[in-house]
């Protein structure tokens, strides 16, 4: 069937065309309509592609390829993109009203968001490791502009830090890619751009020289790990994710860091085949543990709501890395599920936080009080999002954290498990204290009591619905997809 192959190339074009359409109008309503429409088309086409792959297996056309592993991340991306588009309708209206966004900049904002989405689609679909890198740097460039979009001093500082740190980080990734390519070339893999193809390298991976693959993997781990926000390369993350406009924060924390994780998984499979699974697993464990440990104190003492969410992303990326490091069927499955769960939950949290910040006119959590009183629905969503982030059952993150934990126990990584559990408990307490003090109590006088607007609520409820569903049960189709993806990744 040719449908799937064509779709491979159509998918990145959808957001690109949407971006071009944006440039034809200045009307906010029409722009929002194109925004939601483009995201909906992207979601629909991805579902078609997912069905094709489920029945006919992985497809490739040229430098792009889709398999079940990529699909997991692609689905996360398109669902979040749609939620972001819906949320943006109301968010933008409010941002324009308070002067947070200039009306003449609106259409280039929309266009940039869709170009950003297009680059992320390419990172997920790239089979060629060189294309993966190019698209990954493309995400940096587009999102850096978006982070500084408000033009505040803090936004510009965060954007600069982001572009410098991640560009230098990702150049390590390129070096690692060159080294893996050199190893592949040494085995006599020919065919121009084909020698950088992940699927071609995987076929000869057991024959690669372990020495150079080891060094290459460490370079890649530092490089893509920087983009993924793994500590100690995470320094840009709390700044960038907290200073970006809220919809962009949701995309950065929800999807972009997961795209970098997918890159790491691709290289992990190569390294595991070339020098045994123990080596890449060990590296992932170390980075994962450092991330969880480093994030904890910052979560506890944080006063800035969006920074809190940024540090929480560092923690959760660390948990995904731990899952990949523990490995095995359960560990990898848990890690992939956790990437999805965290993406959905964190986007929901950024949405809810954005609304709360707009309502109180501050991001200081000591000032935000009694949210449930002034915004019952938004407050409730913030509360359940925080509960899920903290790992409370029956929400989704609890399920995947438990799987990661079980994998660790199964493999006998007692030290790592002890550290992970201790940090999880501390973060649990910290997050609940923060969330509780925001939700309950007497509302501050500064808080506006205007009714909640429908579009942000709709976007949040979409995500909250998925979050609750995944906590209660994993639908059979998703389970099948994750099972097949686990087979590829482990």
């Amino acid at each position, binding site marked *: 069937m040719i449908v799937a192959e064509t779709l491979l190339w159509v998918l990145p074009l959808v957001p690109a065309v949407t971006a071009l359409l944006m440039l034809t109008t200045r009307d906010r309503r029409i722009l929002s309509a194109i925004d939601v429409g483009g995201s909906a088309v992207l979601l629909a086409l991805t579902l078609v592609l997912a069905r094709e792959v489920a029945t006919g297996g992985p497809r490739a056309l040229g430098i792009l390829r889709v398999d079940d592993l990529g699909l997991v991340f692609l689905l996360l991306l398109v669902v979040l993109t749609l939620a972001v588009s819906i949320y943006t309708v109301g968010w933008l209206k409010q941002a324009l009203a308070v002067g947070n966004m200039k009306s003449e900049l609106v259409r280039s904002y929309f266009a940039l968001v869709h170009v950003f989405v297009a680059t992320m689609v390419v990172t997920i679909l790239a089979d060629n490791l060189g294309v993966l890198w190019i698209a990954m740097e*493309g995400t940096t460039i587009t999102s850096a502009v978006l982070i500084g979009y408000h033009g505040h001093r803090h936004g510009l500082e965060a954007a600069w830090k982001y572009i410098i740190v991640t560009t*230098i980080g990702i150049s390590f990734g390129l*070096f690692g890619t060159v080294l893996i390519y050199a190893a592949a070339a040494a085995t006599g893999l020919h065919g121009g751009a084909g020698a950088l193809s992940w699927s071609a390298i995987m076929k000869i991976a057991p024959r690669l020289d372990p020495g150079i693959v080891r060094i290459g993997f460490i370079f890649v781990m530092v490089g893509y790990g920087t983009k993924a926000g793994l500590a100690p390369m995470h320094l840009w993350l709390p700044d960038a994710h907290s200073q970006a406009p809220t919809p962009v924060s949701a995309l950065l924390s929800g999807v972009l860091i997961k795209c970098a994780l997918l890159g790491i998984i691709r290289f992990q499979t190569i390294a595991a085949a070339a020098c045994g699974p123990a080596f890449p697993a060990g590296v992932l464990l170390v980075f994962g543990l450092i991330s969880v440990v480093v994030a904890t104190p910052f979560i506890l003492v944080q006063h800035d709501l969006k920074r809190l969410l940024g540090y929480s992303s560092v923690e959760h990326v660390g948990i995904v890395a731990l899952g990949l490091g523990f490995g095995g069927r359960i560990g990898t499955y848990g890690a992939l599920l956790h990437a999805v769960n965290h993406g959905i939950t964190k986007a929901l949290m950024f949405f809810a936080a954005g609304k709360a910040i707009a309502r109180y006119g501050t991001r200081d959590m000591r000032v935000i009080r009694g949210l449930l009183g002034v915004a019952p629905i938004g407050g409730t969503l913030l509360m359940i999002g925080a509960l899920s982030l903290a790992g409370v059952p029956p929400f989704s993150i609890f399920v995947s954290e438990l799987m990661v934990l079980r994998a660790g126990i199964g493999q006998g990584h007692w030290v790592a498990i002890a550290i992970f559990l201790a940090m999880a408990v501390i973060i649990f307490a910290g997050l609940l204290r923060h969330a509780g003090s925001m939700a309950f109590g007497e509302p501050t006088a500064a808080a506006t009591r205007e009714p909640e607007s429908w579009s942000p609520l709709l976007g949040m409820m979409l995500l909250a619905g998925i979050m609750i569903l995944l906590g209660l049960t994993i639908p059979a189709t998703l389970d099948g997809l994750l099972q097949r993806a686990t087979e590829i990744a482990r």
Partner: protein
Amino acid sequence: MSADTVHTIIDDLGALLLFAMILIVAAAQIYRAIYAVAAQSLLIAIAGGVLATATGNVDLWVIAGITLAIKAIVLPWVLHWVVRRMNVRREVEPVIPIAATLALAVAIVVMSFQLSASLGPVRQAITGNALPVGIALTLTGVLVMATRKTALTQMVGLFASENGIFFTAMAVTQGMPLIIEIGVILDVILAALVMTIMVLRVRSTVDADIADLDRLRG
């Protein structure tokens, strides 16, 4: 050219590249760092030409040409223009003394050669000492970025770092695929463009240098 001659030339160019890197690390004035990084790019273009002649790989000529045009001429010129346009009063502003950075740079070079000496068979896939030189350039570039406060010096460090990657990539037996190299260079240009705009924007909207932006912590 015989294989030995190519090895010798690449090794000589590698030595010159490291020397230029030391100049960048030691530069107390932004202009000198820009000239040194331009010289580095020129050396890499020459290396591309040599490898193209030796291997008969036409792609390498294209890459050498692009490197010469973009990285040796256009980007340094842009940096130079920004320095003049912004009327930069502040020079390099090291976070730690330059002598200390130099010592670290030397340590990086030694370590890189140690590291790649431990790799037996792969060295056949990469001409001469391009691997250790590439690793050393990349890491030293990061060192420059980490130890300098001003935006333009950080950009110079970034370009130097990328030079190291290009040098190694060229020396891999078959060379990197042309389309990938072009994509990478395109990314470098775009990144440089966005960074330049940011530098100018910070100056015009908040009337500050990037080096003054240090409010986000904790």
